[in-house]
């Protein structure tokens, strides 16, 4: 990640922050606040709640710096804290418990799989930006979460699975489903907004 400091420099910053250097903690905040906010927004679907989660995450991190261990990246550690904070906020009434997960083929059809007559292109990068944002926002929380971790935060498959409390195989399946749903949503966005 472009805003992701290297591990050695970061370990040094964490040591300084633990020793009470506020400038060092500021640098850690600066390096990770965008990632934490983005993930919080993916989970809460709400900028105001995401901001609460962002603040709670760094307040907990400040208090709990001593608990960080070098085995997990600092960013992953922050994202775990953010996820716990977001779960407390998440409004259950927006979820749809018990709903059957669609299979890959159903998702694929929505995404244009097998649609031989529509060789439509994905729009150029600058046109696609807002469609990408809207498409991501339209997905359910599980899909937004796994896509944010893997595609936006750049976590590895293992890190993502551990953070989500899933087996690697279950994470991969959820990721594939989420990607297909995203492709379908992007297609719908661009279909609706094509010239």
């Amino acid at each position, binding site marked *: 990640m472009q805003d992701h400091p290297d591990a050695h420099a970061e370990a040094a910053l964490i040591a300084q922050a633990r020793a009470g250097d506020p400038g060092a903690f500021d640098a850690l905040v600066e390096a990770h606040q965008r990632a934490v906010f983005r993930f919080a927004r993916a989970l809460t679907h709400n900028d105001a709640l995401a*901001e609460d989660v*962002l603040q709670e995450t*760094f307040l907990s991190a400040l208090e709990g710096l001593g608990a960080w261990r070098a085995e997990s990246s600092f960013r992953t550690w922050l994202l775990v804290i953010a996820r716990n904070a977001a779960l407390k906020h998440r409004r259950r009434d927006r979820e749809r418990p018990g709903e059957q997960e669609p299979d890959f*083929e159903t998702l694929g059809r929505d995404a244009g799989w097998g*649609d031989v007559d529509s060789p439509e292109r*994905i729009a150029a990068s600058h046109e696609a930006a807002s469609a990408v944002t809207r498409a991501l926002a339209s997905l359910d929380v599980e899909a937004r979460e796994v896509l944010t971790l893997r595609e936006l*935060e750049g976590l590895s498959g293992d890190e993502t699975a551990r953070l989500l409390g899933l087996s690697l195989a279950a994470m*991969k399946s959820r990721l594939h489903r989420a990607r297909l749903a995203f492709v379908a949503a992007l297609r719908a966005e661009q279909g609706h907004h094509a010239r």
Partner: protein
Amino acid sequence: MLGERVVGGKKCSEVLGLLSRYLDGDLDADEHRWVVTHVEGCAACASFGSRFAEAIARLREEAAREGLPEGVGARLKARLRSAQSG
């Protein structure tokens, strides 16, 4: 799917199921060969595969583009300051 085909010994739906792991370089040698052989002989899967990869590439570009909304960084800093001093 409209006329699901068997190409390279694999059905379109089997290839669809492997696309993410293909994109992530996570297929074993056999699976990789199935996908490549199928896609070479199936225009529908070739077209969907490139659309799929392109859409995911667009999504990844979002990470670099997004900043914090106005004021969020400053309010975070202020909240941390008051926690650190109090």
